[in-house]
Every structure is written in structure tokens, then in C-alpha cells.
């Protein structure tokens, strides 16, 4: 019955389409795909560059500045398509912020550095240590991420914990403490596993928040709230994105030993329930293999609409899949939580989407990386072609379910079919082992489905709504009355707080 009605609808749509547009090809034979809306271009690289991109930003004059694993900082002029060396010799730089056309800030393994060209020859000659006030055991996994500059000029960075896949060096930097050595990932020098804030007024590096594992991505949302991503692993059932606030603990236990006033106990000796009660949950959990394996840098779409309809939302990179992820966050009971949905699938984007930055024209530049991980090398630019795709703009929690908002009106006849929607819920365990299976998986029945008269919203009342679960919604082929297809049909909502 359902099939029949859909089929007859399609037939009538075809006919109308044919009448309206005259050409069969225009409206239907070519399936509506993301390439109608976004295109991806690979940037030609200079000969000899191993483009394992650690950081990217734009200088005020429009040149891209990017740093790479082998220590180079290169500039690229998009107008002339020329690459030039700006700096070299850095130790695994994983982030860059442009200060001016001749000055940048970089976080490399041992420090945060200000790099300047003071004699105007185009190549840096001053490398000032802004801060190196954190420990290094020499373990390879102690990557350092950042900087991220806030409006007052403070600089955030994030410090990986060490891996028990390797030891530490005979000579280390910082005070040694063996208290967390037993874990898979350990923090034996301060402040591994912390997000740090370089306070521009005091010129000191302050420990800001603990509980991180491999926080390869820092970004602000439109309100200046700090978000930091992390990777699936021990104490990470699946990869998370945290809203990071001062003093809070975000779950990975090794870093607790550097918390002021924390008792001299091995964090691993504490009951998981106690650790669980201490931690702040992720705003968004990225269901492993469903949407992401290894999320990277969150970036606010601050283009004011030059990149399509998603202004004000966050994008986040992803290493293992040729895609980005788009975040639909909302505040519930004063806490940020929300949904994630794929972005860029099918645009020709590569894997290894490690760093993101918008240019002045609203194009999104992606720096790829495959260093020691799945991925690709190179740089790409994603350009919005000017038309709005049908996509999910919001997923909001209601008292009894969820409400989806679409970028375009959906055809109510199609959208009102409850068989097009499948809700499932599950959670990921908070525990020491590496990752977690989906746990307590259950289908959730739809009690009531409402399509708003304008076709922009679809609301669901669900049979059950429980905090602490991911709500996984898979949809059938929704479309607009003129045949535009829904670009992403899977969305995942992290429900920490029920609506009061």
C-alpha cells in the first residue's frame, strides 16, 4: 500500500516535473546529489612537500599559512597559486594561528612558539618561545595541539597523554610522577591529558581542564564556548566532543594526578562509578563506524551564509572517512548536547580531514593528514555552488521525543509516512578498556509523527526517552516537492539531559 502510494506519487511528480522544466534530464534522470551543491578541489602542492597537514590559517592578506609534519610552515597564495617557505625546522607542528602577514603562532611538540619575519624577506627569523611550561617524557604519543585564540588573546592548547606502546626517555622535561603509569595511556609529567590556557595577561600557562586522551581539535562555537574533540580509546567508548569549562574533568583518568588537591591515589584504583560521577559527559558522542572514527578540529561556520545554509553551526573533521561531520547543538537544562550528521560525502573529499579553515570567500579549506593513521595527504577546498540542498538543520529534544528542522520544505505526503524513520538507542560504556560496543541497543517506537504545515519540521513522539543514550535516527528518502533529495539520512543525538 505504502509502496503503491509512493510510486504513484513519483509518477505524478515525474509528469509535473516534465511539464515544468521541459527537460527530463534536468529534473530527474540525474539524481540529486551533493555535487549539485558543493564541489571539492585538490590544491596543487609544491614538489617535495609531504603534505601531512598539522595546521592551517589565513593571513590578513589572503595567503593560506599551513604547517606540516616535517616541520615546514608554507604559505600559499590562492590568487597566484604559489607556495613559499615561511619557516622550517619545527617539531611536529599541529596548529597555526596567523597574527599578521609576517607573524604566526604555532604549537609544536615542545612548546608554543611565536614565529616572525622581522626583516621582511618573507622568511621567519625569530622563533620566540611563548610557553614551554609543561612536561615531556619523550613518549611519541605526547602530541600537543593548538593554539586556539580567544577574543581576549588567550591561547588554548591541549596535551596528549603518553602511550604504553612506548616508554619514556632517560631524560625528560618536568616533574616525574609514576602514579598513572599502569594505564594504557599515562600521564607521568604535568599536564599531560589537560587542556591548557596561556593567559595573555599573566603570561603563564594555566591548567584549564583535565581528563583528555588525544584531544586533536579545539574550536569555539558562535558564543565563544570552547569545544575539544577526543578519540575512541581507553575511557572513551566512542569518540566524543566536549564543551570544555575551567576546572572540569572529562573522563580520561590519567591526568587526574595533576589536579590540585586530588588525593595521592592511583586513578585506576578508583571505582568507575566514582570516576563517572566526577566527569562531565560529552556534548556529542560520534557513534563509531556509524559516522566517525577519529574526529579532529571543530570549526564554526562564520561565513554568514557564504558556505551554504549552515551558518552558525560547527563542522568537525574526520580522519578515517572521506567526510566532515556537522554538529547540531542545543542547550538543554543549561548544558550543551545535540546531534551530528555527515557532511561532504560524495563531494570528492579525501580522508584524513585533520584541519579546517574558512577563507574570506566562504570556501572551506581542508588540510589532510595520514600520519601514523588512516587518511590522505594534501589540501582541498570545498566550495558552495549557491543552491540550498535538502538537509537537516536542527534536531531538537522535546519532552516526549525530537523535532527535526529541514533546510527546505519536505513533501508532507512522503514525510508523514512513519515507516521512513527508524529510531534506535544505545550507549557506550565509560570504562578503562579500549572503546565500547553499542550497549543496551533497542529500537524505539514512534508513537506519533507530525509534519508541520510548511513542511519544514517533522516531530516525533517516542515510546521511550532515556538520558545517557545516543538516539540514532535513520531515514528513508525524504524529498522536497520539487524532487530535491535529503542529502544525509542518518543523524545521531546524544541525550545527556531530558527536557524538564
Amino acid at each position: 500500500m505504502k509502496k503503491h502510494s509512493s510510486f504513484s506519487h513519483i509518477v505524478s511528480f515525474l509528469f509535473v516535473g516534465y511539464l515544468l522544466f521541459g527537460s527530463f534530464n534536468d529534473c530527474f534522470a540525474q539524481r540529486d546529489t551533493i555535487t549539485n551543491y558543493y564541489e571539492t578541489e585538490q590544491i596543487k602542492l609544491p614538489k617535495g612537500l609531504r603534505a601531512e597537514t598539522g595546521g592551517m590559517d589565513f593571513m590578513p592578506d589572503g595567503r593560506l599559512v599551513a604547517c606540516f609534519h616535517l616541520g615546514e610552515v608554507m604559505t600559499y597564495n590562492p590568487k597566484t597559486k604559489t607556495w613559499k617557505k615561511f619557516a622550517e625546522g619545527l617539531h611536529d607542528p599541529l596548529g597555526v594561528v596567523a597574527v599578521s602577514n609576517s607573524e604566526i603562532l604555532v604549537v609544536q611538540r615542545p612548546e608554543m612558539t611565536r614565529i616572525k619575519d622581522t626583516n621582511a624577506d618573507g622568511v621567519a627569523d625569530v622563533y620566540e618561545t611563548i610557553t614551554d611550561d609543561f612536561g615531556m617524557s619523550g613518549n611519541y604519543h605526547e602530541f600537543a595541539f593548538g593554539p586556539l585564540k580567544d577574543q581576549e588573546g588567550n591561547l588554548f592548547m591541549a596535551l596528549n597523554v603518553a602511550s604504553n606502546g612506548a616508554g619514556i626517555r632517560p631524560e625528560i622535561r618536568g616533574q616525574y610522577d609514576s602514579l598513572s603509569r599502569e594505564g594504557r595511556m599515562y600521564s607521568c609529567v604535568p599536564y599531560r591529558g589537560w587542556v591548557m590556557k596561556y593567559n595573555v595577561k599573566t603570561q603563564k600557562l594555566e591548567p584549564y581542564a583535565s581528563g583528555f586522551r588525544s584531544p586533536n581539535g579545539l574550536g569555539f562555537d558562535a558564543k565563544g564556548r570552547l569545544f575539544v574533540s577526543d578519540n575512541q580509546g581507553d575511557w572513551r567508548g566512542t569518540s566524543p566532543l566536549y564543551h570544555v569549562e575551567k576546572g572540569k574533568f572529562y573522563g580520561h583518568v590519567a591526568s587526574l594526578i595533576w589536579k590540585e588537591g586530588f588525593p595521592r591515589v592511583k586513578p585506576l584504583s578508583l571505582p568507575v562509578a566514582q570516576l563517572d560521577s566526577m566527569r562531565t559527559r560529552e556534548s556529542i558522542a560520534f557513534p563509531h563506524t556509524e559516522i566517525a572514527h577519529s574526529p579532529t578540529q571543530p570549526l564554526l561556520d562564520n561565513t554568514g551564509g557564504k558556505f551554504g545554509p549552515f551558518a552558525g553551526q560547527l563542522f568537525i573533521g574526520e580522519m578515517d572517512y572521506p567526510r566532515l561531520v556537522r554538529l547540531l547543538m542545543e542547550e538543554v537544562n543549561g548544558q550543551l548536547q545535540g546531534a551530528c550528521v555527515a557532511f561532504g560525502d560524495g563531494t570528492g573529499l579525501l580522508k584524513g580531514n585533520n584541519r579546517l579553515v574558512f577563507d574570506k570567500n566562504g570556501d572551506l579549506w581542508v588540510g589532510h593528514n595520514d600520519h601514523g593513521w588512516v587518511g590522505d595527504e594534501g589540501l582541498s577546498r570545498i566550495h558552495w555552488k549557491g543552491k540550498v540542498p535538502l538537509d537537516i538543520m536542527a534536531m531538537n529534544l522535546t519532552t516526549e521525543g525530537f523535532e527535526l528542522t529541514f533546510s527546505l520544505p519536505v513533501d508532507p505526503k512522503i514525510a508523514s509516512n512513519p515507516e521512513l524513520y527508524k529510531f534506535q538507542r544505545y550507549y557506550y560504556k565509560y570504562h578503562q578498556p579500549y572503546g565500547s560496543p553499542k550497549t543496551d541497543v533497542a529500537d524505539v517506537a514512534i508513537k506519533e509523527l507530525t509534519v508541520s504545515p510548511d513542511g519544514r519540521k517533522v516531530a516525533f513522539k517516542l515510546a521511550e526517552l532515556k538520558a545517557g543514550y545516543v538516539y540514532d535516527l535513520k531515514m528513508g528518502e525524504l524529498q522536497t516537492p520539487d524532487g530535491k533529495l535529503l542529502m544525509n539520512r542518518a543523524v545521531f543525538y546524544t541525550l545527556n539531559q531530558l527536557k524538564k
Partner: protein
Amino acid sequence: MRLFLIVCGLFIATKSFSQSDTTITLQAITGLQYDLVRIAVKPLQKVTIILKNEDDMAHNLVFTKPGKRLSVVEAAIKMGDKGQAANYVPESEDVLAASKILIPNTTQTFTFMAPSAEGSYPYVCTYPGHGYVMYGALYVTTKPLPPLATDPNIPPSRQNTEIIVSSPHPFALEYPLLYRTFMPDCSPAAIAVALTSTHSYCFDAGKCYLRYAWAGGFVDNTAHWKGNGNAFAKIQGNIYFKDNVTYPLRVGKVDKLPDVSFKGYTLANRLPTFNYALDGVEVKETLKSLANEEGLTRVFTFVKPTTQILYFVTKADDGITYKSSVGKWQNGTLTIPKGTSKVTLTMNRNKAQAPPAAAHNH
């Protein structure tokens, strides 16, 4: 553990320069040349050549009998149309060993026995037009090689530059050259500096002092840059100086180690000057090579004239003869008076410690 690493580091350095190593990587690089212009092996030694073509043209590698380079090159040209199929290697008793024609970004490994007669055996690219400039010399010998600058068996353009390392970067390597990397026997915040392609030192940016210096090459970061990054950079050459006091500069009291703080570095014509503070005394230190790589000069500039006595502490067994522009030496310790703005310290390698003539141009 620390001692072990020192020993280990020396062992690696020695090994890569030993003639027992019969595997030689030779690269065809931009500018019709091989990266190495001289190779030394022992008579009757088994030699494995890994030939990499890093250039954007096709090349081969042909070893000939002494003095036969040009005749083999000309015989290859005469092969004409048939040359390509035969890799431009003429049938001749004068050819000892040869590779195929390698297109860009390909590699071939081949092995041959070094002749029993000592001598200089040319190696050359016989691809038409290349062999007049693209060549080098395989020395079959147990003796030191002649000075590079007057060696008639290598291209004149290469008589100055002992080593040309193909750049891993999108730009040519220029010296001085600096890498922040993981170095053995140093804190994890290490800086490796090549003053020239064959004279290098390791500055500890965590502990703010010169850790050691070596001659014969720079560092190979290949292992560190690939995989998870756990590997140290590999020192290429022989360490001739290692600081064996915990920290050489002392402020006020000779036996008190200062609190140090690294401030970064500036580059002047690529030469770094390190900025750091010890017990609040702000120091700028520039290291330069002495002539013939006989050691280092270290210029310490104090941002403000010193208000306390400074000491520079050395130990006798470090293979170095020290001289200073300022202050007095007593039992290996230099006393630098108050009011000093600049000290030039000369570190001469003791002759007894001088390494044997380089016999292997890695």
C-alpha cells in the same frame, strides 16, 4: 641508562662510517649528478648498491675500470637506437657492473665484488649526454682518500661539497640548518643544528645548553618522521664533544645549578642565536664552526652586564681545549667577572682526538 645511550649513539655513528658496511645508497639527483661523488670500499669486498633515481630524468649507473669512463661513455653513445634496449651499457671488458636505466622515482639494487686491485674506479651515467658531467669515483682501497678539493676523479663542480643531501622538503637544504627533533642523550626538547653539511651540534632547549657536537654529517630524521615518531633522529658522523658536566654555566656560586628557561632563538643568515635565562640572567648564545671543523666558538652575550660572578665549568676529559676572551681559568673552571657583557669561548678539538680522515662519504 643514560650511559648506555651514549655508548649506543657512538656505536651507531661508528657503524655507519665503517668500511664493513657494504651497502651503499646512491641517488641520482637534480643537476646531472649523484648525491655521493666518492665511495670507498675494500678490495674484494661485496658491494651492494641501492640506486635511487630522485631526479626527473632517466639515469643509470655504470662502474668501469680505472681511466675508462670516457671511452665507455662514448661507446654508449655509439650504440644509437639500440642503446635504450641495452640500458646504454656497451659490451666491454671495461664495464665492471651496471644498473638498468631507471626512470624517475624508481630504485634498483645490485651487487658486485670490488676488484682486488686498489685504485679509483669511475662510476658514471651512460645515458647519452650525461656521462661527461655525471660521475664519481669508487675507491677500492684501505688507505685514506686524497683531499676532495684536488681529487681529479670527481667532477670539478663537486670538489667543494662533500655531501649533497637530497632535501625531504619542498625547498633545497641550506646551511646552517636546524631541526627540532628527538635526539639521543638530550631532553625531549632538542634542537639539532648543522653549521655546515658536515659539522653539527645538539642544543638542549629544555636544559638550555650545548649537549654535544659532531663532524661528518648532520641528522637523518627518516625514522623519526615516519611511523609513530618514537625513533630518535640518527646522528650522521662522529661525536667529538660531549658536555660531561650537568650544566656548564653557573651564576654566583660555582657549585649551584641554575634554574633555566628557554626563550627561543633568532636566525641571522640562518645561523641560530639561542635566548635563555639562567637564574634570571638573560643570555644569548651563538655557536659557530672553527676553521676546518676544528671545534666551535661560542659567543655568550648577556643582555645586561652581569651583576654576579659567572662560572663556566668543564671537565678535563672532554677532548677540548678551551680559551676564553674574558675571565680566568683554574682547574677547568672559567671565572667570568661581574660587569661582563660578552664572552667568546673557543673550543678546540684536541689533536689526539681528531678523527681519522674520512674514508667514506656518507
